[in-house]
């Protein structure tokens, strides 16, 4: 189990680049270890209000040579005198180990935040002479004489998840309780390399340069997004897409860490590599600053399958018309809709989805009396098309159209959304805005009464903007729909009382 210092140095030199250790630090380690009489520094590890994820992560340490596991590192190069998750001793014997270590020089490592509610009694660490010792007391006891204090993980560094609103147990960071600067190695959990890197610096007698949040500047010096391999590769709108995840809520642009370079679990993968958004877990303010984590408004995406039934008033195909459809088919292999037919020379033929009414496009009839229309990735893929020209119209089934189970029309659900619903008191104006497919009509309704407030078309930029000045009543919630897809959103600043009074007024009026 025990490796000698020579091997550790060899490892540090060999992995300096990967670990990011400056060679000056390695040089100092060499000098420090040259003197065999130098005692291994003791480490006292305290568990605050933690989840043990940081210790588990530490046990996943990257290594391609030298110490194979953090256990090697920790037992060969430091003296881990007290660590409740790992130590053999329990109860009084464990407390004795702690006291012995504290009587000499030691490094204090803490994971978990420090609760202050109930005078700290939501987290007690040991019993001493019949008295419960809180994490708060433990930190205050051990911080003054510590050669260095490592706050391991976001909880210890900044409060983290137990400190999230409303912070039921009054979590404080270790440095707040210690009253001193601590070296903050955040992450939820932290990355083992970051801890080893820091410990190696300390062994060499160096305190690494810290940023304004107390984090080693060299490790947390740039936002992930700046050099993310997915930057500029396109926007993912649905989970599972292998491109930039900003639209889904990725916090890479606001998070300083080197996960995109170092990756995780011996560079096996990393969050974004698995198409999972970065959560911003190394930042002060995690989680509240980044919550909700996903750019998806939960619960307001009721999805209804578009109705693809032929309308009742479809005119029958008459023999006297020149307008004809000779082919209407869907080609799945290249996602293409093809509609062809005959018509009056030089006239314009428009092609629409028969059920949805979505206009797909228009073509002109050639001199041979034929017209051809094709479109890649139509949204939705119609199971019936309607073509119109000079007052005539014809409807035809689309061969090989996918079964109408809604999945074919994913595009609509991805592109139709309400982005904003707001009442402006100063202007007495209702504003509803969103995104959709160019050319689609959007119905805007008062969600509670289902009254149609108006219609608006989606512009060429894929955006729609609905405005209404001085509405009879200000809706509390908007329902907007396009091609059978409906969304709802609460209206910001809607005067609640007035709308309900208005509804009461309407009821009285209609009852009269």
């Amino acid at each position, binding site marked *: 189990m025990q490796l000698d210092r020579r091997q550790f140095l060899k490892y540090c030199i060999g992995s300096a680049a990967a670990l990011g250790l400056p060679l000056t630090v390695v040089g100092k380690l060499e000098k420090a270890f040259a003197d065999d009489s130098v005692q291994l520094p003791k480490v006292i590890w305290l568990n605050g209000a933690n989840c043990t994820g940081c210790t588990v992560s530490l046990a996943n340490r990257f290594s391609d040579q030298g110490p194979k596991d953090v256990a090697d590192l920790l037992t060969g190069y430091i003296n881990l005198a007290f660590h409740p998750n790992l130590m053999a001793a329990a109860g009084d014997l464990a407390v004795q180990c702690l006291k012995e270590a504290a009587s000499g020089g030691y490094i204090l490592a803490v994971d978990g935040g420090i609760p202050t509610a109930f005078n700290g009694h939501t987290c007690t660490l040991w019993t001493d002479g019949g008295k419960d010792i809180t994490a708060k007391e433990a930190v205050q006891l051990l911080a003054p004489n510590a050669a260095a204090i490592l706050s391991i993980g976001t909880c210890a560094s900044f409060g983290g998840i137990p400190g999230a609103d409303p912070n039921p147990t009054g979590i404080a960071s270790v440095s707040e309780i210690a009253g001193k600067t601590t070296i903050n190695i955040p992450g939820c959990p932290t990355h083992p390399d970051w801890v080893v890197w820091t410990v190696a610096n300390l062994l060499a007698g160096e305190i690494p340069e810290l940023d304004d949040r107390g984090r080693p500047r060299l490790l947390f010096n740039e936002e992930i997004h700046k050099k993310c391999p997915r930057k500029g590769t396109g926007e993912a709108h649905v989970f599972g897409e292998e491109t930039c995840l900003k639209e889904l809520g990725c916090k890479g642009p606001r998070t300083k860490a080197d996960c995109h370079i170092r990756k995780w679990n011996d560079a096996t993968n990393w969050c974004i590599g698995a198409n999972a958004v970065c959560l911003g877990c190394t930042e002060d303010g995690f989680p509240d600053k980044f919550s909700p984590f*996903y750019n998806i408004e939960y619960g307001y995406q009721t999805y209804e399958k578009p109705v693809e039934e032929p309308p009742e008033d479809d005119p029958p195909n008459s023999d006297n018309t020149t307008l004809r459809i000779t082919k209407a088919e869907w080609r799945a292999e290249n996602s293409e809709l093809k509609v062809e037919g005959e018509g009056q020379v030089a006239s314009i033929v428009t092609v629409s989805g028969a059920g949805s009414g979505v206009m797909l496009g228009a073509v002109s009839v050639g001199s041979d009396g034929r017209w051809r229309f094709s479109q890649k990735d139509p949204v939705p893929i119609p199971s019936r098309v309607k073509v119109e020209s000079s007052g005539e119209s014809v409807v035809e089934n689309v061969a090989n159209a996918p079964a109408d189970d809604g999945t074919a029309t994913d595009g609509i659900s991805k592109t139709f959304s309400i982005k904003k619903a707001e009442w402006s008191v100063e202007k007495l104006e209702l504003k509803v805005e969103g995104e959709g497919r160019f050319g689609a009509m959007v119905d805007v309704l008062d969600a509670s009464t289902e009254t149609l407030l108006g219609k608006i078309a989606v512009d060429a930029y894929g955006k729609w903007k609905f405005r209404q000045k001085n509405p009879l009543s200000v809706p509390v919630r908007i329902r907007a729909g396009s091609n059978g897809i409906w969304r709802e959103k609460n209206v910001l600043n809607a005067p609640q009382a007035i709308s309900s009074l208005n509804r009461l007024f309407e009821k009285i009026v209609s009852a009269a």
Partner: protein
Amino acid sequence: MQTITIIDPVTRIEGHMKVEITVYTDGGQKKIVDARCTGTLFRGFETLLNGRSPLDAPVITQRICGVCPISHGQTAVLALENVSEWLPPANARLLRNLTLGANFVQSHILHFYLLAALDYVAGPAVSPWKPAWQVDMRDGLGNVAANLPAALEARRHAHEMGAVFGGKMPASHAFIPGGFTSNPTRESIDKFRSYLSELTEFINDVYLPDVQAVGKVYPDYLEIGTGCRNLMAYGVFEMDDTYNERLLNGGYIENGSVEVKHAVDSQNIREAVKYSWYSDSNSNLSPMDGATQPIFPKQDAYSWLKAPRFLDKPFEVGPLARMWVNGEYNRGISVMDRHLARANETLKIAEAMDAWLDQLQVDQTAYDDYFDQHSGLGAGMSEAPRGALGHWIQITDGKIEHYQVITPTCWNASPKDDQDVPGPMEQALIGTPVEDPDQPIEALRIIHSYDPCLSCAVHIIQPDQKPVVVHAGSQ
């Protein structure tokens, strides 16, 4: 003569725990006659989840525990999907099974070698494995100690395996309601498989034999630490798209019977609070109705763990319970049976993972647009390595209104209930002979056999009062 020993900290567990045992000496015999298990950390996850977007739940609940975060992520997405009774595509089911399975394997190996084994065999002669209680350490297990480095590497590799699809371990954010974020490729499947064969070999050639070796040297522990003899599992690892068949199905037994009853109805789960620091008006509510009104101090209460009960009885959960109700392990209920069942379960899961890898479809999506609902109730019932895990969610107007978690360790380390019936671990401790009340290794062995994970037990708090008696010394 009676002494009370306070073991605080209980080390080599996940989380913070204190155990108080009353040891009674009669003639030459010393025996535990009373036991109180207390968690000493309270964070209030249910409170800090309220008002948040439901999609935040799988992220935040994974931080309930860093040893079993995947189980919380999985159970949270199951609860969310249950609100609309939504079932994800096959690829998602398999990828979840594989990532969850990787964490089970990691957790079980970590538990035996880093947490439990040191009760039976001395570790390396350096801190933190020295000093240790020198009581009843028997010879003949040198091999087990020598396997510690290989075990550390194996569990690290199990996490690397979990990261292949999961992105990162210990916490993975590939778990999302609607499916799984990553897509399997030929290369990633091969990489996963190569880790899996190495780990399966380790389980067969090292882990299982080591557990069996400990059982042979400590055969008395096949009779010690039985506990309440009621076992329960919710079930885990969906085998097909009907979601009606699991690798380890749910079920329960009472009084050590081999007759398994199925269908664990969560309507029959109640949490008692007579000995817990909550208002008595909250007592005996089911998880969906559960309220958490702290009251401290409170007469007779000694724990912030509520006492979950099923059919008004305490139930043990964990690998032994899962293997028992599936007919895979029926030798007995004891300290050593728990370790053996855990090791056997690890092998069963590893072998199943091979088949799941074969079923993955490289060209198919693992995510379907999720039909979320802005109001509703959902329940996710699954398993963590330590036992049955349930998440209950109530969503109103697109925000979490109520979130309740009952974790396996809440079942196992629960305090007494309203009928004064002690929890499973407490029952297992009571009646156990002890050689030296100052070094009650026997108690430690019983506690560790449950693989306690105290972070999970969210309702826990340490009383702000002096203990009844200081440990050791004469009466």
